[in-house]
């Protein structure tokens, strides 16, 4: 695949982040919806580490020196899918539900703010493109 220009690369990254944040929102919604369901395991959508190693190539990234090598970590932002991890209740009291609504609400607003920040960045990026197209007028 042709290496992308930095401009497109940033756009691609921002799009991917929007997708991942939308997925994260659903996982958090699932946790809050099941905050009263007995023996429900809290779920967490993890993608940040994967994203970082895709961007920096390190840590944990294996270098591919041949076209037919398969990279263990996602080298391209498009290959990031994130993973859902379940957490069991460790307290041993109550109904074995590991959701704490306050923590989830915090994760919810954090996710929402970061989503909005990403849309802002994308907007600015497009604004710059528009500025260039109009010849700086």
């Amino acid at each position: 695949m042709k290496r992308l220009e930095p401009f497109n690369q940033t756009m691609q990254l921002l799009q991917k982040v929007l997708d991942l944040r939308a997925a994260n929102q659903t996982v958090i919604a699932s946790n809050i919806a099941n905050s009263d369901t007995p023996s429900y395991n809290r779920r967490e959508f993890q993608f940040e580490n994967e994203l970082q190693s895709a961007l920096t190539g390190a840590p944990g990234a294996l270098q591919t020196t041949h076209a037919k090598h398969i990279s263990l970590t996602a080298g391209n932002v498009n290959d990031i899918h994130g993973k859902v991890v379940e957490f069991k209740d460790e307290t041993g009291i109550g109904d074995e539900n590991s959701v704490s609504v306050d923590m989830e609400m915090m994760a919810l607003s954090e996710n929402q703010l970061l989503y909005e920040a990403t849309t802002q960045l994308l907007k600015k990026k497009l604004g710059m493109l528009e500025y260039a197209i109009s010849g700086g007028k």
Partner: protein
Amino acid sequence: MDIFTTFDVSASALKAQRIRLNTISSNMANVETTSTPEGGPYKKKSVYFRTQAIPFKEQLDSSIKGVVVSEILEDQEEPRKKFDPSHPDAAEDGYVSMPNISVLKEMTDMMSATRSYEANATVIKSAKRMALKALEIGR
């Protein structure tokens, strides 16, 4: 994966919590009811939840779960006895069987249901705001 899955998940929770609140209001309303069509005093009803897969949304290893009321069961506890020989539902020994409902318990359960409902309404609001922000890209 789209933002609308969030709406499905949270809406299922809103529905479940509403059913829970209806059941609590039924318990509260019948706290003094001594006769029912089935005979005997009113019995406290309890709502039980279980997870539910969102149909057609089997993404992310189908780990996204909504919630549904699995069953509403009648409490099997013995009725409370109250001495009142003049009561039409009094037994021969003069005792009336009253529903075994703790108003205090019902009130706390009601608060819990309300808070859960609010939390899920907040999630819907947040998801809606995110979707609107995405629409603003390029504007």
